[in-house]
């Protein structure tokens, strides 16, 4: 039976087992490889997407649980004003090293800024502590979030 999802504003229809995590639907069925696999058990944040604007780990999220909800991935987040600002801040501050964790970092940061336009350090800690960066870009992740936050008000 076909499953229907709205991803980045587009209708997608495909066949997938109900318990299949959204991560693998995105990557292996829809070919949207921007969302990354890092741990598979909600420990690293590499697979973060937005469901109705909230940051969630797609690796443990059964696709059946999100039908009818609005899903945003790294491929689409740049069309939102907050997402575009986060992406720009990431480039302005040259946050990225290997980049593999950064889809997840950007999705978490964009969700944070959407709900908390001027986050302080503890807000950033709380929102971002689930995102591991093995390259250790945390100093710049924090700065870039603040940079994006300041741009939003000007």
């Amino acid at each position, binding site marked *: 039976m076909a499953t229907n999802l709205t991803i980045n504003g587009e209708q997608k229809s495909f066949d997938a087992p109900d318990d*299949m995590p959204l991560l693998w639907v995105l*990557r292996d069925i829809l070919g949207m490889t921007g969302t990354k*696999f*890092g741990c598979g058990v909600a420990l690293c944040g590499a697979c973060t997407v937005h469901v109705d604007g909230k940051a969630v780990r797609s690796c443990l999220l059964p696709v059946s649980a999100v039908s009818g909800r609005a899903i945003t991935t790294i*491929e689409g987040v740049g069309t939102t004003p907050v997402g575009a600002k986060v992406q720009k801040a990431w480039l302005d501050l040259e946050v990225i090293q290997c*980049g593999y964790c950064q889809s997840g970092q950007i999705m978490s940061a964009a969700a944070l800024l959407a709900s908390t336009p001027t986050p302080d350090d503890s807000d950033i800690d709380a929102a*971002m*502590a689930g995102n591991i*960066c093995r390259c250790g870009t945390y100093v710049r992740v924090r700065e870039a979030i603040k940079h994006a936050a300041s741009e939003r008000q000007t």
Partner: protein
Amino acid sequence: MKLADNMLVAASPANKPSGLSRRNLLAGAFVGGFMFAFQLPVRAANEPTQPPDTTEGKFAPNAFIRIDTTGKTTLVMPQVEMGQGIYTAIAMILAEELDADYAQITLQHAPPSDKLYGNPIFIIQATGGSTSVRAFWKPLRNAGATARAMLVQAAAEQWQVEPANCTASNGQVMHAASGRKLSYGELCDAAGKLTPPKDVALKDPKDFSVIGKPLKRFDTPDKVNGKTIYGIDAMVPGMTFATLAQCPVFGGKLAKVDDRAAKKIPGVRQIVVLDDLVAVVGDHMWAARSGLEALDITWDEGPNAKISSKDIWAHLRAASETDGVIAKSVGDIAKGLATGERIDASYEMPFLAHATMEPLNCTVHFKGDSCEVWTGTQIMSRVQSEAAKAAGLPIDKVTVNQHMIGGGFGRRLEPDMVVAAVRIAKQVNGPVKVVWTREEDIQHDIYRPVYRDNISATLSNGKVVGFKYKIAGSAVIARWLPPAFQKGIDIDAIDSAADQPYDFPHFQCEYVRVEPPAVPTGFWRGVGPNNNVFAIESFMDELARKAGKDPVVFRRELLGKAPRMLAALNLAAEKANWGQPLPARVGRGVSIQPTFDTSIATVVEAEIDSQGEIRLRQVNVAVDTGIAVNPDTIMAQIEGGIVFGLTAALYGDITIEKGRVQQSNFHDYRMLRIDQMPKINVHLIKSGEAPGGIGECGVIGGPPALRNAIYAATGVALRRMPIDRDAIAERKKS
């Protein structure tokens, strides 16, 4: 960005407004020349479509530079990008001497070829050892300058003027006297007919216009929107997805497997059973994973099934007491150790996994008489030859498509993930992507070796007289690059130990090769210096305390012959407010390191709570790496390296029980997270010396500096990594 060998990355200088042809993607395949003498890869299905390249490339003066008639300048990257910013640094070096138009540059991964793209330090085509800029500095500058000289020559001939009266900049040759100009695109035809000159003059570093600028990276724009295709993202038409289980005991084999339950899982297509692994192939990773979990596998665990960390340490400790091969001797160590008060200590380092953020993976299409591989690797040519061996094909029947790497750290200096994927693919019809679960990735790593270092030194009137340092551990070099293993000495294992910045009157460095039973060992970011700098710098603090001296003062007195190191030490100490009072159970610790031709001093400030938990407060790093090709990248590498090293100091410990690794994912192989971060201040020292290595340097100094901060704060002299919280918890006073 395009996948595979014809991948291009568009250029964008930092100092031009973004959006201005930032994504100037043009098609890749350069026609003619030696470059594509190998088979062109099948384009992956998810590659962005590119406009066809209608221009024929004309000017290819060497392996690194291609200029076509439109002026498009393609720079071929001999080293792979894994986050260290090397694509940008290489492009900057080439563009500097070429006087290229930065906006017309596109980048391309090099195909496998030791001959054309071999790392001058390793001879083979490898990205590692913080060598890229050091090794390619001269060859790339020469390549750029040679191409430029030929373009100038072509223009001069056309104008019938002296080449010496022509100048080049920004992709154009100019003749000031007549006001004439020709673009590189217009000149490439004529230049292509000239013979490359032998000795070309390189620029005086004071004339550099690109090198030394904090330019924006070429690779990052596609990394903010999910467009970058890493190896794990390769999509090939008709592909299936697989994941694997290898025997959890090192060296074990498969006994039998019951796959009845797995085969019933929707999407599972095939179970591949080899003598040492099982793979489940499915329509997607979810089917493959579910199938793998449903398998009932019986392993023949083999001779290593009883080995534990305890055995490995007993073996290493015993071996470390034997005499080593002398790697370096200064003065008379026997005399030195017989003079003054003697202090002995031993330091120990654990096994570590790499845990690259991108789990191991490799996609292979085995077609019987040829084989195509998609992966991200630090060793292009070796991957090709190992894949050929596994496939049973001649090397020229194997195509390897290089990708951006989601973290290498030395793990992708090994070809095992490629070999496993080829062996699986041989049983599968059509292309198959083999992705390792994180658990498999951590439990079947090729680990940073365990080390034990024995140090003896003597002090007389507060000064070091004799200093003997003996390393015991794996010789990774002996396995990985056998010709470099000479006279029983692993040049990596003794790195930053044998050649001391400290001016010890009597010094000896010895090495004992000890291979741990069962556990495979390999390179891990920071390699030998991680061990040596930790042991020596920890011991220096113990000596300083014995001598009744401040740790910075004590080091300073011994750095008379290492002015760059001394300057780094002084700068780091100053920036860290060294000597200023701190609250109780807060300490500052220092370490210095002469690593990869870069002089670094690190000061860590940390607080240790009553339970022994550590709060990192601040890190100051002073770095003299010679000419800084891209200062911003260097700062980023140091910042990230600090996190990588401190992660290991706080948590890194792979332990073995019953022949198997006990850790499996990020809950028990923990990573430092953003909420634990200290402030990190990196201070770059201006220098005109040749560039040093940087990619691994940041990793090395944090652990000893943190260890010394703990020593200062608690008085506990830790001699093992990772940090033992119980040992530094506040004891009840009895």
